[in-house]
Each structure stands twice: as C-alpha cells, then as structure tokens.
C-alpha cells in the first residue's frame, strides 16, 4: 500500500496521454474486433462440419439430427450465458440449476400424467433461481462470479437432495414429444426458435439496455437505463433457458437424471460464448456465434466418436480449441488496440 501515491499520480498522467493519442489517431481506417470475431466461428463451424462428413463418409438428415440433438441443451444454456456475458457478468450457477432441474425431471416427471404439473414448475424453479442470482448481484453489489459460484454450490446441493446418485426416469410421453422429427428434425426447430427469440429480443428496448450495460454500466446509468431491472431479468432468463436445456437433456438424450450433469455445462457454455466471439468484458457478442460455438464443441465429440477414438481425445481437442480461440481473439484485440487506441474506447 505504501506505493500508492506515485502509482496514482502516474496513472492520471497515463490516462491523459492515452486520450491525446486517441485524438490524433481518429479518422484512420479501422478493423474492428467485431469483424474478426464474426468470421472465426463461421470458419470453424464449416471446417468441423466438413471434417465430420469426411470422417462419417456420408451426409444424411439423421446425422444432422444427431448433431443438433446433442447440441440443443448447450445452445439453450448458451443463450442464457450469452445474455449474462453481454452485460459483463458470468453465470457459473447454470451448472447447479441444470443439475437441479435434471434431478427433478428424473424424479418427479416419471409418468406422463406428471408432466402437466411439473413441467411449468421446473421451468419456474429455473426462472426463480436465476432471478435470485440477479437480485443478489444487484442488491448486494457482490461480483457475479462470486454470487453464481456460491449459488452453484447451493443449487447443486439441492440437486443432490432431490436425487442422490445418477438414476431416475423420464416420462416416455415427454421424450417422444421432444425427440425425432416432423419434416425437419425437432432439434432444428428448437434451434430456429432460439435464433428468432434472439433476433426479436435484440430489437427490443430490453436488448438495447443489455448491450448498453455491457458497454459501460456508468454511462448506461447516466442514460437512465434501468440497470437493476435489466440485470435481474437477464439472470432470470439465464435460469429459465438453463432449465429448458436440462428438460431437453434428460428427456431426449439421457432418459434419466444425474445430480452432477450440469457441471460440464459451466465450462461448455462459457466456451461456446467465447468461441462465438463474445467479449467477457461485456457489450460484444451474439447468439448466432454462440450457436456456432456450441455446434463446434459438440461436433468435435461426434468426430472423435465416428473416428472410433476414445472420448478423451475429444476432451483434449476441445481444450486446445478453446485455448486457441481465446488467445486468437485476445491477440486480435490487442493488435487493434495497439494500432488504434480509439477503437478500444468504443469496444
């Protein structure tokens, strides 16, 4: 602490210098991080898609269905995570909410007759759990990382109370309603709905407010954006979409429950958002990128499976991919900022 006075003085001087430099550079041609981050997930998706078809040998509707069905839970969780990251936060509690809902689905919705009562109830639980996160973040001023870390622990404890080990079963009616295909795979319909919801949401006042908060919370406040209300809604929606993902996961993919199923979705959802080009600092990111990121992550697992390799190869490749993506985006941002400090102020 003794070093504080000189630190403070030079900090202000540096600030002024940066601002002066920014003024000089204004008017130069810019490459925005948005342009780079928009291209990367598309390229990655196409490359992995081609590799998957090559490894599999053929392309069929059922292949597309398999890929989408395994990705839908991550797309739904990723939707919530994208909203949260756009505000500059992070939601680790998706792991706990996902586990809790999966456990409830596998223990309470075992017969077709239970679905009508329990489906709205579990979705409400997801919504409420998320709203609690949001309320705590807004009211106590604790960091989202800490609040959701703690609530992840609490929710996953509740999941263990509902279902102590992997098991349970899911109402067959629910499974058959959600899986399979009409003319197109139902998973594709779900994905399309998510995209439409995003496109609509982005054009609403709520969407604008989310981006405003992520870009600069103080400015958003000054422009009378209802910061508290918007944040609570964002975390509540994250909880709701996580619950939707968990219902889909247990009824279409596993047909049973696991009180720890959600833990992998913490990393996976954050990774999908980051590969999709969102900035963890907030204000930049979009749902299409997240969907492409989620598909890329699950296609890696599919490719490893089709190639006949053990599943841990998928884990290794996913780790490399996530690290490469985050380092690439960081480098791009750094280069742009170095070349043109003005764009850093906007980002």
């Amino acid at each position, binding site marked *: 602490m003794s070093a504080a006075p000189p630190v403070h003085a030079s*900090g202000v001087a540096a600030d002024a210098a940066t601002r002066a430099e920014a003024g000089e550079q204004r008017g130069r041609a810019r490459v925005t991080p948005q342009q780079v981050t928009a291209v990367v997930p598309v390229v990655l998706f196409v490359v992995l898609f081609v590799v998957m078809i090559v490894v599999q040998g053929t392309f069929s509707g059922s292949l597309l269905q398999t890929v989408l069905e395994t990705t839908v839970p991550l797309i739904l969780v990723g939707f919530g995570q994208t909203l949260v990251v756009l505000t500059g936060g992070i939601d680790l509690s998706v792991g706990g909410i996902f586990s809790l809902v999966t456990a409830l689905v596998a223990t309470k919705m075992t017969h077709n007759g239970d679905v009508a009562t329990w489906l709205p109830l579990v979705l409400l639980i997801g919504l409420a759990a998320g709203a609690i996160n949001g309320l705590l973040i807004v009211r106590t001023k604790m960091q989202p990382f*800490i609040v959701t870390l703690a609530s992840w622990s609490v929710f996953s*404890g509740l999941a263990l109370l509902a279902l102590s080990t992997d098991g349970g079963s899911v109402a067959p009616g629910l499974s058959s309603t959600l899986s399979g295909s009409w003319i197109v795979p139902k998973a594709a319909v779900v994905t399309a709905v998510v995209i439409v919801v995003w496109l609509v949401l982005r054009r609403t006042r709520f969407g604008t407010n989310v981006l405003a908060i992520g870009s600069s919370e103080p400015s958003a406040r000054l422009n009378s954006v209802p910061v508290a209300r918007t944040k609570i809604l964002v975390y509540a929606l994250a909880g709701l979409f996580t619950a939707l993902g968990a219902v889909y996961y247990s009824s279409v993919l596993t047909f049973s429950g696991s009180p720890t199923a959600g833990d992998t979705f913490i990393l996976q959802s954050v990774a999908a958002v980051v590969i999709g080009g969102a900035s963890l600092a907030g204000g930049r990111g979009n749902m299409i990128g997240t969907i492409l990121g989620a598909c890329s992550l699950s296609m890696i697992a599919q490719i490893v499976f089709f190639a006949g390799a*053990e599943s*841990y190869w998928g884990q290794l490749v996913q780790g490399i991919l996530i*690290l490469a993506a985050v380092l690439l985006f960081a480098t791009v941002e750094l280069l742009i900022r170095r070349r043109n400090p003005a764009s850093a102020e906007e980002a």
Partner: protein
Amino acid sequence: MSAVPAPASERRSRFGQTGWRRRQLVIAFAWILMILLFVVVSLFEPGFRSNTNIRSIVDQSMILGIVGLGQTLVIICRGIDLSVPAMMGVSGVLLARHGTTTGDVVGALVLIVPIAIALGLVNGLSVALLRAPAIVVTLATNTLLLGALLVTTNGATSQTGGEPAKLFRTLSTGHIGPISVSGLVWIGIAIVAVALLAGTRFGRHVYAIGNNPVAARMSGVPVIRTVVSVYVVSSLCAALGGLLLAGYLNQTFPDMGSDYLFTSIAVVLIGGASILGGTGNYLGTIAGALTLSILGGVLAILNLGPAYMRILYGVLIFVTVGLGTLLARRGGRST
C-alpha cells in the same frame, strides 16, 4: 467485471486507509468464525476436540491450504486459476505410476515439476501478455491437461488405483507423537508465504498489480514477470496438493482434484480476499481452509451428506463475502 470505478484519488484516500483496516477486520472475522465454530461444536461433542480429530482436521485442511496458497496469490493479482483440478490429477496419477517407492519420487518429480511450470507459463503468459480472460484460459488448460493425461496413458489412468510413495502418506497423515506432520509442513509453508507477501518486493508487486495494473506498470512494477510467476506458483502449489492428496487418499485418479476447483476459491474468499484483487492475505486463507474442514466434520457428526455440505459452503461464501462487501462498501469498491 467491476462496478462503477471510483476516481483514483478517492479510492486511495478512502480505500487505501480505512478500507484496508476493514479488510483486516474481515480476515480477523474469518479466524473468529473458525474458532467459534470449533469451540461450539466441541461443547456439544467432546470427541471433536480430541487430539485424533484435530489432527484429521489439520490433515484435510493442509491440502486445501496449500492449493489455496496459489489461488490466494492469483486472486490478489486480479486473476483466477481454474486449472487447479487437472494439475492435481496429473501430479497424483504420475506419482502413482512413476513414484511408488520413496526412491522413485525424484523420477516422478522430474515429470511433474516441468508440467506444472509449463502450465503456469501458459496460463500466466496468456493472461499477462495477451490480456486473455483468466477464467476462460484456465478452464481451457484444465480441460486440455486432463485430456492430455488420458490420451498419453491411453485412458489407463481413468480407473482408481496406484500406490503412491509412502513418503506422501507420511507427509499428509503421519504424526510425531501428538503433533501431526501435515501441521508442521503447513506451518513451514505458511511462514514462507506470509513473509513472501508481506516482506518482499515480489509481495508488494503482487498487491500493486491487484490494486491497479496500469498504475503498477507505470510505476515500474514488472507486471508480466510477476503475473507469470504467480500463475507458476499456483500450478506448483496445485501439483504439491495433488501429491499430498494422493498420499492422503492412498489412491489416485484423474478427477481426484475436481472438488478443489470450488473449494480452493472458496477458502480464499472466506479468508477475506476480494475477487477484484489487491487485498487479502494467506492468514485469511488458512482460516478459510480450517473452517471448511471443521464444517465437514460437523456435518459428518450430524450424519448429513454431501448435499448439505454444498448448500452450507454456498451460504458461507454469501455470508462472509457479503459481510466483507458491507464493511468495504464505503471504501468505494464492491467485492
């Protein structure tokens, strides 16, 4: 991540002095909470203060405390290290494969130490040099390292097994008369850690970077070197934690460190450090680690399973961090 940043001048005058004292209060509170918990439980359950039980609490807390040391340094530096579980798994599994007798331990360390240093370098350079977000970088290296462990051993390590060297069994569970070996080891490490943070230039640099990285660089702090060192130390602490955990459990498996992702951060937060960096010290983390182990013991007495433990851990973080935020709020910072 941060909320409204206070102007630098305001932050120094308010947070720098009274806020700092409030932070020390939070650390004192962590100790008071821990001691109170122990005393109250001992009143109801006399067996709780028996020498054997105290030793077992210390044995469990030590591993958490050592892994938490690395996490403390990283968090003071405004970072986070989520690659702890993989490093623990790697060091434990490699010990069981290559260091089954005390004589072989050096052979295992020749593999483990370079991996830990490499992991720390990748984490640290990504965060310091490329300004990549620590959360994603360390989550990615965690996945990558666990995947690499399984790939290089053809998945053979995914089963529980292996007989780690007796040396680490002694270090983590042994006792000399009534005194536990783990306690002695921990006290030694704690003295070094506290001295490092409070009394050396490196320690001052760590706090300076946590308070304001830009200002630290302007005033001549070697930011990149310090941040990279901090992540390397964290990986080495996790590696040592993995070795000790292998000895404690007397078996190893790749996922053996998975609980430490949460608990290593929890002990630092309960110990009064701010996730925004710049505050906290190792004494707080020690109290945090002891608190978690005592709570585990209490739940075992009450015959309550892991479900209640998770709920209680979460609530404990809310309460302690909430209190810290309340105390430090007038200092113009949120936690």
